[in-house]
């Protein structure tokens, strides 16, 4: 069937389709609580390491890893920022999980390096200090990282 509409009207309709699609793409993100939760846990881990109790450090590190694995499983795709919408998988940049994990691992390496540097400099609480720096990078840089991933293209390759 040939539709009885003009090309201008068809363009407007496609404009509507794209606008609505973009509104859903704009929802691709990690929940804010993920970044802040991770930042707080990171600093807490630094504090525990500075206490110098190997058993406590091991227990808290394992708990941190387990909780993060459980939480990340749901939110790492970036498709469930809120409870309001589940973005289709093909619209989310498929490299988002790798990007987030890479960022977290890089901050882990940064924390270790800063911790050693601060310890060499005679700081009283080197891992806590390093943890605060990494925590700020998580809480403030995480949302920017996701915005960058969105700009790199929905459904595209990062």
């Amino acid at each position, binding site marked *: 069937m040939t*539709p009885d509409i003009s090309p201008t009207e068809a363009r407007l309709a496609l404009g509507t389709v794209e606008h609505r699609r973009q509104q859903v793409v704009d929802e691709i993100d990690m929940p804010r609580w993920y970044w802040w939760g991770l930042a707080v846990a990171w600093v807490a881990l630094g504090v525990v390491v500075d206490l110098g109790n190997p058993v406590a450090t091991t227990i808290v590190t394992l708990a941190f890893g387990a909780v993060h694995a459980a939480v990340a499983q749901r939110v790492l795709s970036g498709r469930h920022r809120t409870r309001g919408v589940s973005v289709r998988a093909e619209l989310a940049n498929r490299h988002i999980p790798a990007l987030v994990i890479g960022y977290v691992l890089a901050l882990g390496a940064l924390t270790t390096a800063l911790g050693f540097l601060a310890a060499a400099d005679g700081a009283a609480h080197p891992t806590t200090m390093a943890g605060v720096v990494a925590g700020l990078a998580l809480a403030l840089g995480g949302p920017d990282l996701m915005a960058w991933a969105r700009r790199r293209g929905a459904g595209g390759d990062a």
Partner: protein
Amino acid sequence: MTAPRFDELIHPSTRLSIVALLAAADWSDFSFVRDRLDLSDSALSKQLSTLEGAGYVAVDRPLVGRRRRVRARLTATGRAAFEGHVAALRAVIESADPTAADEGPTGRGEAADAAPMR
């Protein structure tokens, strides 16, 4: 490639907006659609009922936490109808301007030049 099939039920701008929004999501909360389209509860309910009656949309009421949510999603029939409709819109443009390039599954390139309808 989806066969062009103009859909009179989807084409009105409010319903096109609803279907386009749902097409980009696995499911969407009633409130999310209402707020993005700036519709009243009753206006959205009416449009969803029409789409549900045609078999294009399914409305679920899952219990999330202690609250019952109203969620809408496109059915396979609705998604096929939407894709056919988008293909038909693109065909209209291409028939008027045969040099119009194919710029993606939803005609993003064409669409980006056009202001959205309400």
